[in-house]
């Protein structure tokens, strides 16, 4: 009895045409999934860094070094450093 009910439901579904926006919907979902994966990756990295004080200092120190590059170039142009 259950099988009959299921077969009828299946036949009915197979007769129905999918909406025209279905491929777009699927692609959007795939894109969102990829975005979530990336966000999770960043989140895991941040969590790992947050657990260690040394890592936090290292990240901020590295950021300071990279962010200071324009100032280093300015000092070079102003003839205060030579390389």
């Amino acid at each position, binding site marked *: 009895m259950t099988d009959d009910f299921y077969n009828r439901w299946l036949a009915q579904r197979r007769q129905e045409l999918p909406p025209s926006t279905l491929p777009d919907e699927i692609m959007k979902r795939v894109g969102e999934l990829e975005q979530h994966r990336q*966000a999770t990756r*960043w989140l895991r990295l941040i969590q790992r860094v947050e657990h260690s004080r040394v890592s936090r200092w290292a*990240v901020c120190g590295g950021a300071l070094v990279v*962010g200071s*590059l324009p*100032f280093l170039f300015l000092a070079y142009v102003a*003839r205060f450093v030579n390389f």
Partner: protein
Amino acid sequence: MASMIKSRRIPWVALALSFLSAGVGHIYCGRIAKGLPLYFAWILVPLCVTAAALGPPSVASLVLLVLLPVLSVIIVYFYAAIDAVRLAHEIGSEYTLRDYNRAAVYWLLIIVHIIYPIGLIAGVRGMVYEAFLVPASSMSPTILNGDRILVRKLLPMHYFPDRGDLIVFRNPEPTGGTTFVKRVVAVAGDHVQMDGSRLLINGRELERERVPDESLRILGEEVTGEVSYEVNSARRYLVAYEDTPDGTAADREFEITVPERHVFVLGDNRDRSNDSRNFGAIHIGDVIGYVDYIYWPSESWTRFGVVNAGD
């Protein structure tokens, strides 16, 4: 469209982003209106420096339009970092993510921010002002060994060096330094004659007025020899003679008529200078720019400021 996802703003992430690029820490905390002006603060430097180069040189221009904007971007950089950490603490976990709160946006902003200030500085150096460190005392007492000078490259069209101008030019000889700083004493068509310590331009001896030795201390310890004010076409500047510690003085007997599109240059320290007496007149195409300022004097800060003034 803004999402409704709640997220925590982590202070050390805000600090790291701000260190990488001023303003990005604020964008991370959702304060884009405050973050973008901080992000573009570097634009202030070329705008102000170009404004300084367009006007006549003055100490006010040097301080307000050259040194202050440079100092401002350094202050903005650290202010942005401190403020981003404060903001992140303040917001805590009650933050609704915005569309621009994405790693790709942060990375793009950071990469652009590392490149564009370097481009702006290189542009200013190439076209507006270039800094030089003077490694010799051939221009003493005007420019001493170790002085840092600013050379203006932004000049009106068809502007030629005039008598009394301080110029930086490419070395016409294959040996020695790549650039020299000297004073223009004669222009195209002038007849230059040196007879001992007398300098004659078109048959007229340039007037000199001796500076008392006790007044020399204000110019710095390096200034030695016999220092005088020399007047050349209404320009008054300091020159030194008899400054020959190793006993070898530059050529004192000299005569030349300056060719077309050339200028004749001499060091202000007349007895210790390698100048047009050795390598001839300079083609104006070799002129790099005009010395406007000493922005970092080697010893006495009394010499800070304008060096190429009209009087």
